C-alpha cells in the first residue's frame, strides 16, 4: 500500500511502457465517513508541457515501483480541465491542517496512506508522524533509532480545513463532537477558520461551543464574526457566560450588543456586569429555576418538565416568593421521593445561614463554604434576602483550571 509521498513526481507509463509524464496530484470527491476512492490522476506531460487529468479506471498499477495505465495513451480518454467539486490530495490536504475528530485536535498532514477498499484504491489514513516527515524528505533510513513511529489517523475520522470548511460534509460530522472538544479544535485553528467553524453550526450549538472557548479567543472571535452572528450566539448563551464575555469588551461594544439582545436578557446582563470576577456576584449564574412555596410537589414536577429546555441543568429548584425573597432550596431527589400532594413549604429544611453567599464575597471564601457544606451549588442573596443568583461548582472549578 503506497504513500502519496512516494508516488508524487513518479513517472506515469501507459500499457506500452511509454512515459506519459509525472504524477502531480490525485483527485478525490470527499464524502463524510468514507474512505474516498481516487477519481483522477493529475499528470504533467512532457511535450507539450501541460497538466492532464486521467480517470482512475485507466490505472493498472499504482505503487512505489510503478504507476502504469491499462491502455496505450492514445486510447485514454483524459480531460484537460476539471470541475471544482474535487479535492486535490497534494494541493488541499498534504502539508495542510486537518481536524482529527477522534482526538479532537488539529494536526498537520505529513503524508497520506492509500490502499484498496472494496476493490477501489482509496485514501485510508493520514500520517502525522515524524516518520512521515522523513519519508517526504527522502531520508526514511535516518530513522535508525526509530524515535518516530508511523502514526496513522483513520481517513474517515478527519476533516480538511483548507480554505472554506466543507460545511455540507463537515457539519454533520462535527456535530458528533462534544462542545468542549469542538472548542479545543477551534482553539487550534487560526481565528479565520475558527470563526467559520462556529458560524457553520446552528446558533444553539454554536453558543454551547462558544462558551467553552478560551475567554481571550472569545473576545477576539467576536470581532471576526458579523454583529448579527454574535447577537444570535449571545442570545443562546447562558447569562453568566455573556456577562463574562462582555466584561472583556469595550463599553461601546457592550452597548451595541446589549441593545440587540432581548430587553429582559440585556437587563440581567447589565445588573451582573458590575460585579468583579472573583466575587460571588461575578461567579454566579442566573441559570436556575424558581418555584413558589405553596406549589405542590406534583405541580412543581409538571412545571419542571415544561421549563426544562430553558435551563442548562437542574440540580435544585429554588423556592422564592414573587419578589424573589428566598425560602430555601429543594433537590430533585427530595422532590421525586416526596408525596405528590405535599406543599413545597413542607419540604424545606433549615437552611444554614452560613452557607448563603453575599454578592461581594471573595472567591476563597466561596470555596471554603462550598467545601465545608459539600455543596454543588450555593445561593447568593442580597441584604433583603432576595435571590440574586446561584454559584455552580463547575464555575468554581473553571476558575481553578482556566486552561482545561
Amino acid at each position, binding site marked *: 500500500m503506497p504513500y502519496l509521498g512516494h508516488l508524487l513526481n513518479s513517472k506515469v507509463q501507459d500499457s506500452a511502457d511509454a512515459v506519459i509524464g509525472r504524477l502531480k496530484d490525485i483527485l478525490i470527491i470527499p464524502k463524510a465517513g468514507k474512505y474516498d476512492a481516487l477519481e483522477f490522476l493529475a499528470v504533467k506531460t512532457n511535450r507539450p508541457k501541460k497538466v492532464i487529468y486521467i480517470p482512475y479506471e485507466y490505472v493498472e498499477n499504482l505503487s512505489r515501483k510503478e504507476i502504469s495505465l491499462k491502455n496505450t495513451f492514445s486510447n485514454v480518454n483524459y480531460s484537460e480541465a476539471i470541475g471544482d467539486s474535487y479535492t486535490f490530495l497534494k494541493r488541499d490536504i498534504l502539508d495542510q*491542517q486537518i481536524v482529527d475528530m477522534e482526538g479532537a*485536535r488539529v494536526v498537520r498532514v505529513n503524508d497520506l496512506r492509500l490502499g484498496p477498499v472494496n476493490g477501489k484504491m482509496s485514501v485510508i489514513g493520514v500520517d*502525522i508522524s515524524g516518520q512521515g516527515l522523513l519519508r517526504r524528505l527522502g531520508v526514511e533510513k535516518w530513522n535508525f533509532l526509530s524515535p518516530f513511529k508511523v502514526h496513522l489517523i483513520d481517513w474517515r475520522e478527519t476533516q480538511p480545513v483548507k480554505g472554506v470548511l466543507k460545511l455540507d460534509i463537515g457539519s454533520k460530522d462535527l456535530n458528533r463532537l462534544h462542545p468542549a472538544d469542538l472548542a479545543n479544535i477551534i482553539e487550534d485553528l487560526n481565528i479565520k477558520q475558527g470563526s467559520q467553524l462556529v458560524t457553520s453550526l446552528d446558533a444553539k450549538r454554536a453558543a454551547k461551543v462558544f462558551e467553552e472557548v478560551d475567554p481571550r479567543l472569545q*473576545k477576539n472571535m467576536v*470581532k471576526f464574526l458579523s454583529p448579527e452572528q454574535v447577537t444570535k450566539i449571545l442570545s443562546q448563551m447562558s447569562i453568566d457566560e455573556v456577562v463574562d464575555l462582555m466584561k472583556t469588551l469595550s463599553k461601546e461594544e457592550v452597548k451595541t450588543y446589549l441593545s440587540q439582545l432581548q430587553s429582559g436578557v440585556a437587563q440581567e446582563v447589565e445588573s451582573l456586569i458590575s460585579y468583579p470576577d472573583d466575587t460571588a456576584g461575578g461567579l454566579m449564574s442566573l441559570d436556575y429555576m424558581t418555584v413558589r412555596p405553596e406549589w405542590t410537589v406534583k405541580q412543581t414536577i409538571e412545571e419542571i418538565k415544561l421549563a426544562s429546555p430553558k435551563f442548562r441543568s437542574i440540580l435544585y429548584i429554588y423556592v422564592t416568593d414573587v419578589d424573589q425573597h428566598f425560602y430555601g432550596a429543594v433537590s430533585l431527589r427530595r422532590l421525586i421521593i416526596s408525596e405528590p400532594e405535599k406543599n413545597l413549604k413542607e419540604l424545606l429544611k433549615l437552611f444554614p445561614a452560613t452557607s448563603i453567599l453575599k454578592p461581594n464575597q471573595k472567591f476563597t471564601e466561596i470555596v471554603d463554604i462550598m467545601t465545608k457544606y459539600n455543596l454543588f451549588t450555593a445561593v447568593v442573596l442580597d441584604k433583603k434576602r432576595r435571590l440574586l443568583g446561584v454559584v455552580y461548582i463547575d464555575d468554581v472549578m473553571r476558575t481553578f483550571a482556566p*486552561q482545561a
Partner: protein
Amino acid sequence: MKKKLRRNWIKLLFFFSVVGPGIISANADNDAGGITTYSIVGAHFGTKMLWVLLLITFSLAVTQEMGIRIGLVTRQGLGGIIRENFGVRWTAFAMVTMLIANLGTMTAEFAGIGASLSILGISKYVAVPIAAFIIWFILYKGSFKTTQKIFLIFSAFYIVYIINGFIIKPDFGQAFASMFKPTLEWTTPFLLTMIALIGTTITPWGQFFIQSYVVDKGLEIKHYKAEKAEVYLGAFITDIVSFFIIICTAATLYQHGIRITDAKDAAIALEPLAGHLAEVLFAFGLFAASVLGAFILPTATAYAICEAAGWEYGFNTKWKDAKAFYSIIAASILIPALIVIIPKISLINIMILSQDVNGILLPFILIFVMLIINNKRIMGEQVNSWFDNLISWATIFGIIAATVVLVFSSIIGLN
C-alpha cells in the same frame, strides 16, 4: 538640561503607551548582539557606516510591515505558511536556516549575560548556567509575560545613550553628512562588521516573531494602518538608539583609537554621562537587553518549528502533549549556554559573529517572505507595492552582494 530631561520623560511615557508588536520586536532587536555590534561599528569605524544604518532603517520598517501584513491576512505564523506553500523540503531548509541563526543569536544573548555580569565581578561559569536555568524555568512554567514586560521596561536603558550623546556634543553635522555619503572599505573587518550591522538590525527571528505576535493577539485587519504606523515608528526608534550608540562610541573610543576586545571597553563610551559608574550602567543595560532576547528567542524558535511540523505548541499545552515544543526550548537554551562557557572563548567575538551568521542567512528567509507576499492566491489584494518590493529586493541583494564580496576578500586576503 532639566528641560531636556523632562522632554525625554514625556517621550518615554509616550513610548510605553503605544507599545505593540512593532516596538517590542524592534526593541528586542537591540539585544546583546545589537549593543555590541553598534558599539564596535562606532569604535572601529567611526561614523563611516551610518549610511548603512539609514538605509536599513527603511529595510527594517518594510520587512517588519510585511510580517504584519502576512499575519493579518493569513492568520498563520510564517512557519505554517512556508510549509503549506513550499512543501516539506523547502520547509526543512527554512527551518534549519532559522534554527542556526537563532542558536547563534541565543549564544550572543548568553555571551551578553556572561560579559555584563563579569563587569560586576561574577564569573561566566557561575552566571551563565544560573541564568540559563532561570530562563528555562520561567519559560517552562509559562509565566514569562510579566518578566518580559519588566525587561522591556529595563530596555529603556537605551535612553542613556541618547542623553550621553547630547552631553558628548559630537559633531552632528559630520554624523549627518556620513549618513548620506556612502563609504565602503574593501577589507574583511569592514565587510564583516557591516554584515553584522545589517544582521543585528533585521533578523530572521524578528520576521517570525512579529508575524506570530499579530496572529497570537488576534489583531484585526482594520488595525492594519495603526500597526503599520507602529512598525515604522518602532524601526525609527530602534535606529535612533543605534545611531546614538554609534556616535557615542565614535566620539569616545574611535577618537582615541581604542578597540573593543572586552565588554568593559564598550562601557567607556558612557563615561561622559556616568563617570566611574559607566561600567555598572553599561553592564545593567547589556544584561537587561540580553535577558529580554533570551526570553523571546527560544519561544519564537519553538513556535515556528512546531507550527511548520504540525507538532503541538504553546504554553497552555502540557509536556506530555508537546514534548517537541518544550524540547526545542530547552535545547535552544542549553546548547548556546554550553558554547558560552567554553573556556577562553571571546564573548565579544561571539556577539558580533553571531550577528554575521544572522545577516548571511537573512536573505534566505526574506526570499520566502517575498514569494509569499507577492502571491495573489495567498495575499489577495494585499500583495506588495512596487516600493515594498524595491526596498526588500534591494536589501536581499545588498546582503548577498556584501557576503559574496566578504568571502571573496577573505580568500584573496584583502585586509
